């Protein structure tokens, strides 16, 4: 067995610190199921699927959750206070590599009446707590003040053009995906992104079918992500609203209320100001569901009609622990990796 015993103690100390902190903030700890019969549809995430076998021999599918979001939002909709959960999440289909596992631990918290930006001080505290619990000598890359850079600033600096101007010119300011002009605007921004990629002789996928968000991510991953400064933790804020997520739009702008946190170039956390508009939620469910003919609208209705305005943050705790320890991968944290369990 190859795991590092001190990593077990460090994880326990990290959890103690986090729980103590959320207690002082008045956040309720919630423990929700790992199995669901109705996961939030996400076209890019593959789920672990199992069968619930009934005593009469019939069965139906159940899924391991990719995140506890669906449950936590239900709890909020029932009238709870701000809350958090530390628990396991599962993503199928992903290659196990330096920073990816099929099973991982997430801290997810929801602050009522908080916008995404208002969670950055909470994130800073969480970094401080983890550093104190695990590695008080951790360098400025982890312990420094979170630097905030907007996606538009990052594109101007590293990709050489104004993303904001491009989005505005395509008409993606102040409209949302229920607007009849939306498809035309998406087509316009797609053409713009394609021309940028072709200019640099970069792959741009199928001209007719490549989505605007795939084109955006090609540009982002090629020019921006690896160029972001890593001397301190970095929050990349104000992502384009046209990327389909459950983050709400910032009215009158082309941006979503959203940030992603990077430490040493590794994505560790993300935060959304949560969408609560019923039409937009249904549109998201419709677009993301594979059951296109009859999407299950129970969740969007419950969220829209019950959940208070809030923002949710998800932190990959394994990645955070590894980075604070100074590791350059998740390897030392695996207690019983799948391949070690293979029968001889």
């Amino acid at each position: 067995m190859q795991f590092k015993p001190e990593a077990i103690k460090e994880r326990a100390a990290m959890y103690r610190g986090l729980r103590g902190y959320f207690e002082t903030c008045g956040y309720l700890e919630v423990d929700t199921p790992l199995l669901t019969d109705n996961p939030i549809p996400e076209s890019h995430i593959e789920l672990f699927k199992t069968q619930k076998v009934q005593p009469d021999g019939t069965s139906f599918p159940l899924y391991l959750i990719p995140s506890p979001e669906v449950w936590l939002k239900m709890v909020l909709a029932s009238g709870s206070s701000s809350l958090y959960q530390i628990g396991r999440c599962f993503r199928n289909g992903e290659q196990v590599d330096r920073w990816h596992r099929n099973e991982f631990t997430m801290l997810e918290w929801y602050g009522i009446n908080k916008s995404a930006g208002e969670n950055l001080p909470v994130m800073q505290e969480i970094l401080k707590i983890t550093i104190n619990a695990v590695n008080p000598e951790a360098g400025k890359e982890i312990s420094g003040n979170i630097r905030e850079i907007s996606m538009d600033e990052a594109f101007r600096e590293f990709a050489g053009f104004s993303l904001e101007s491009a989005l505005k010119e395509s008409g993606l300011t102040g409209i949302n995906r229920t607007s009849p002009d939306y498809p035309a605007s998406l087509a316009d921004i797609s053409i713009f992104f394609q021309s940028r990629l072709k200019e640099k002789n970069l792959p741009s996928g199928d001209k007719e079918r490549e989505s605007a968000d795939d084109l955006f991510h090609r540009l982002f991953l090629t020019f921006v992500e690896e160029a972001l400064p890593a001397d301190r933790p970095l929050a990349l804020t104000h992502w384009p609203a046209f990327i389909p997520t459950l983050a709400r739009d910032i009215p009158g702008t082309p941006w979503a209320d959203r940030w992603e946190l990077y430490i040493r170039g590794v994505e560790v956390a993300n935060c959304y100001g949560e969408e609560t508009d019923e039409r937009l939620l249904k549109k998201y469910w419709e677009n993301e569901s594979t059951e296109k003919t009859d999407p299950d609208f129970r969740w969007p209705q419950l969220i829209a009609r019950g959940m208070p305005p809030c923002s949710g943050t998800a932190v990959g705790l394994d990645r955070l622990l590894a980075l604070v320890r100074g590791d350059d991968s998740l390897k030392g944290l695996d207690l019983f990796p799948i391949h070690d369990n293979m029968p001889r």
Partner: protein
Amino acid sequence: MGMIKAGAIAKGTYLLEKNEPFVVSEREFVNPGKGSAFVRLKLKNLRSGAVLKITHKSQDNCEEIDVDEVESQFLYSDGVSFHFMDSSTFDQFEVPIKAHENAQFYMLDGETFKLTRWNEETLDIRLPPKKDLLVAEAEEAVKGDTVTGATKYVITETNLKVKVPIFIKQGEKIRVNVESGEYQERIND
């Protein structure tokens, strides 16, 4: 050879990108916060050695190429081409010296080398890190000449000019670093 999905590419896969042959030296999967799976590749150009970094969507189609490692015997050089013989098929083929200029100094007639071949083109001749060569011509050391330091130049049997210590004589064997062309040591047979 055929199409391969970018997500199936591994370290060591041979690819055609922008019409040039590459080998994958690094591969990392990237899933942006919300979106399709992507893969970051570091590629080495098999012709020039230049490094290319490229990001593909895992679903992109890439072209995988058939690159062979061919054990080949170096027959001779005619000044324009190296003449090789495939050790298993005995087929003879030519490789332009211009594409592998360094190799001319480190191959002796009859020796066997691993060649990376694609589409009738030789992309690489695998040379050893060090080569022992006979000194064909050596200037005579001038007694008492310490102005130029304790080195001089010699020409090896392969026409390579090497800076060596003053005591090296014609007919002796020297070990040369193949990448830098620098003298390493004298070889006593």
